């Protein structure tokens, strides 16, 4: 007995030493780091370590007191074996913590002024285990503080108290708390505006809130090192217990400390939403196992079945052989052992002097009784004891024993796939060509030029051509429309696939042809397929280019890179989250310029369809999908993109689910 106590003591002592070392490390890091983010993280570790140290120390104290008490009672009275039954322990998991905020509308819609930011994290304490969540930076653009972590406590008793504390720290660069000397601080606060000065002063001094507080735990046993740097303050707390455990999400009330004057203040709505699940060990582990003989009442009195029985959860599983348990073979039969079950020991069997155990259940209005017998009296006694313990556990853990609640252990997250920075469509386009970009461009230009040549044979060449005509003396003066379009459209160039030049360069000024030429044909080609998203509100064929819009399909091959990409994506099936992995990512904001999709039959060409759905998926990405009924295309996968008239007439429901009428997304 003494040895185990000593063992526990030394365990805790080791933990305390470990935490003290961690705390020292955090202090050093805090003193050394210069970046705000690092400082916040270090301060968070410091806070966690300090809390853990306090918890361990108070536990140590409690244990010492208990030891002393035990010695006292042992001397004074004859303490027999403690007869109280202890309920089994279990796992408790809390996940999906979400704390809504309630910004004043004046705050929320402010576009100017600094963003008041706070760094927040949660400390969760159950028994001797303390965990912290990741740190989240909160500003007025957030409506809820969300913590993604799942925290699992492994050794909880049914009377557990899970204390959740929300700590926050102001994260503005101007207010580096504690470093400004007091005189200067008061001077500043009096000279600054009233609210700014108030904030500053609150940041300087601890104010009504102590820097390291655990709201009601035992007094500090160790001096807390005062380290310059950000300090976290307790913003809100709550305590959860068994009655809050449920297999779904629930809302709990928070007790908020601090007020508006504090620098770390955040306007909390006052509640917290989370999922609190518990798995008592009686539901997940084998409580008792052994060999039995089972007989069903009402059957043949001599038909005892020999089984290997395992008591777990709400059932007694009876296997033919012990090996079946390991092999995961289905049990021969299962007897329910739940709150409705009644178990009693029957009269002594006249043949063998062993008592039988009778288990009665109600199956749909009928009572079914199984009788168990064992080989020896001790075994019977042990089984009865196990059943009593099991019932006791179920009565203590209450709703957790109705069904097994799932607890997902946070899987070690694979490093997130390297997502390209949010760029434009063009960053993700690949030019499948030689490395020499200039030759690519010149190939493209050559192609365009050739087309232009052909067109110019039809009539007058576009007026802007003169600009680029070196031989033309009137080259002055019409850069205006071109350059503006140039800026808007130059990105289009890279994704032209170079084709083998259709014909040798005819015009000596190939190199001088501005990309505008290619642009025109771009627009030209795109006008035929779709008003492509990456044209900034390109006006419908302006008069200049009326020539070019003549039957482009004959000359202009399809934009291979864009279409090819899209058709491969469609072939991949699910687009994943309704969003095609289509590189049509952030569109220019002017996408909402009326896309004349409605004017054309979207089903004329499959690739047209695809292009259109691509552009509408971008529009839904930009979340300005205000014209729900307007956007005729859904970001849906293949199955819905080819409703043919024949099929529509067949399935009425399918027709009503036509994505052109009602937007649907695949998830």
């Amino acid at each position, binding site marked *: 007995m003494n040895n185990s106590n000593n063992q526990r003591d030394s365990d805790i002592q080791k933990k305390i030493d470990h935490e003290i070392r961690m705390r020292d490390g955090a202090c050093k890091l805090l003193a050394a780091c210069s970046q705000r983010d690092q400082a916040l993280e270090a301060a968070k570790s410091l806070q966690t370590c300090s809390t853990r140290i306090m918890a361990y120390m108070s536990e140590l104290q409690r244990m010492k007191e208990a030891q002393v008490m035990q010695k006292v009672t042992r001397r004074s009275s004859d303490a027999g074996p403690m007869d109280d039954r202890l309920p089994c322990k279990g796992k408790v998991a809390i996940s999906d913590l979400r704390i809504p905020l309630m910004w004043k509308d004046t705050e929320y819609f402010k576009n100017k002024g600094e963003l008041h930011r706070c760094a927040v994290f949660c400390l969760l304490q159950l028994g001797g285990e303390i965990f912290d969540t990741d740190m989240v930076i909160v500003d007025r653009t957030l409506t809820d503080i969300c913590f993604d972590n799942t925290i699992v406590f492994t050794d909880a008793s049914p009377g557990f108290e899970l204390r959740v504390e929300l700590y926050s720290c102001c994260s503005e660069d101007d207010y580096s708390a504690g470093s400004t000397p007091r005189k200067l601080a008061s001077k500043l606060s009096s000279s600054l505006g009233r609210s700014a000065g108030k904030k500053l002063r609150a940041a300087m001094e601890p104010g009504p809130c102590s820097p390291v507080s655990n709201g009601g735990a035992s007094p500090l046993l160790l001096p807390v090192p005062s380290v310059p740097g950000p300090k976290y303050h307790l913003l809100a707390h709550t305590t959860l217990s068994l009655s809050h455990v449920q297999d779904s999400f629930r809302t709990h009330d928070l007790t908020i400390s601090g007020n508006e004057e504090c620098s770390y203040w955040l306007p909390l709505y006052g509640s917290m939403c989370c999922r609190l699940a518990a798995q008592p060990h009686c539901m997940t582990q084998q409580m008792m196992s052994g060999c039995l003989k089972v007989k069903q009442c009402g059957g043949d009195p001599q038909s005892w079945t020999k089984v290997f029985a395992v008591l777990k959860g709400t059932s007694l599983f009876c296997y033919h052989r012990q090996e079946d348990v390991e092999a995961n073979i289905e049990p021969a039969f299962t007897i329910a052992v739940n709150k409705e079950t009644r178990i009693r020991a029957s009269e002594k069997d006249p043949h063998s002097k062993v008592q039988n155990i009778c288990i009665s259940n109600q199956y749909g209005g009928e009572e079914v009784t199984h009788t168990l017998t064992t080989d020896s009296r001790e075994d019977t006694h042990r089984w009865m004891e196990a059943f009593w313990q099991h019932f006791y556990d179920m009565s203590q853990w209450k709703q957790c024993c109705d069904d097994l609640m799932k607890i997902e252990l946070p899987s070690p997250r694979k490093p997130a796939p390297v997502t390209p920075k949010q760029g434009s469509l063009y960053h993700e386009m690949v030019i499948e060509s030689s490395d020499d970009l200039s030759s690519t461009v010149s190939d493209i230009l050559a192609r365009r030029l050739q087309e232009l040549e052909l067109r110019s044979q039809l009539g007058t060449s576009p007026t802007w051509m003169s600009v680029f005509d070196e031989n033309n003396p009137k080259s002055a003066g019409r850069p205006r429309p071109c350059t503006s379009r140039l800026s808007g459209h130059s990105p289009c160039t890279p994704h032209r696939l170079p084709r083998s030049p259709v014909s040798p360069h005819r015009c000596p000024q190939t190199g001088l042809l501005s990309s505008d030429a290619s642009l025109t044909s771009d627009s030209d080609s795109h006008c035929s397929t779709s008003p492509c998203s990456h044209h900034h509100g390109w006006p419908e064929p302006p008069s200049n280019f009326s020539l070019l819009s003549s039957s482009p399909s004959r000359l202009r091959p399809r934009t291979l890179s864009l279409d090819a990409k899209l058709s491969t994506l469609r072939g991949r099936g699910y687009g994943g989250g309704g969003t095609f992995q289509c590189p049509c990512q952030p569109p220019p904001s002017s996408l909402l310029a009326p896309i004349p999709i409605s004017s054309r039959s979207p089903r004329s060409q499959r690739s047209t369809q695809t292009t259109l759905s691509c552009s509408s998926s971008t529009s839904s990405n930009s*979340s300005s999908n205000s014209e729900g009924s307007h956007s005729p295309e859904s970001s849906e996968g293949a199955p819905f993109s080819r409703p043919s008239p024949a099929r529509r007439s067949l399935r009425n429901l399918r027709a009503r689910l036509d994505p052109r009428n009602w937007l649907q997304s695949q998830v």
Partner: protein
Amino acid sequence: MAFIPGQPVTAVVQRIEIQKLRQGDNLILGFSIGGGIDQDPGQNPFSEDKTDKGIYVTRITPGGPADAAGLMMGDKIMQVNGWDMTMVTHDQARRTLTKKKEDVVRLLVTRKSLEEAVKQSMSYPRQ
């Protein structure tokens, strides 16, 4: 299932837990949704009340994770992992369902047959 503005919504719900399936880089659930406060509720073929702007399940991929979990076509999704779905835009709903960090979504769904089942069971006299 009609709601009165300003009054809390009550419904008979079923809890459905869907494990997302990983396909390459994507996590898929295997169903399609329609509806949202930014969509036209009159086009919803599943809703009883044609002003209901909630999120409805429009299609289930046979054999997919949603199918295995018991989700049915025509279900109205009330909550996803604790987040409300009765007053969200279509895109918000889609985004809440497809968070990359979550492997499991726990839905609260309601359908007409649930309400009717409850009514029937209440109408039978208890023995």
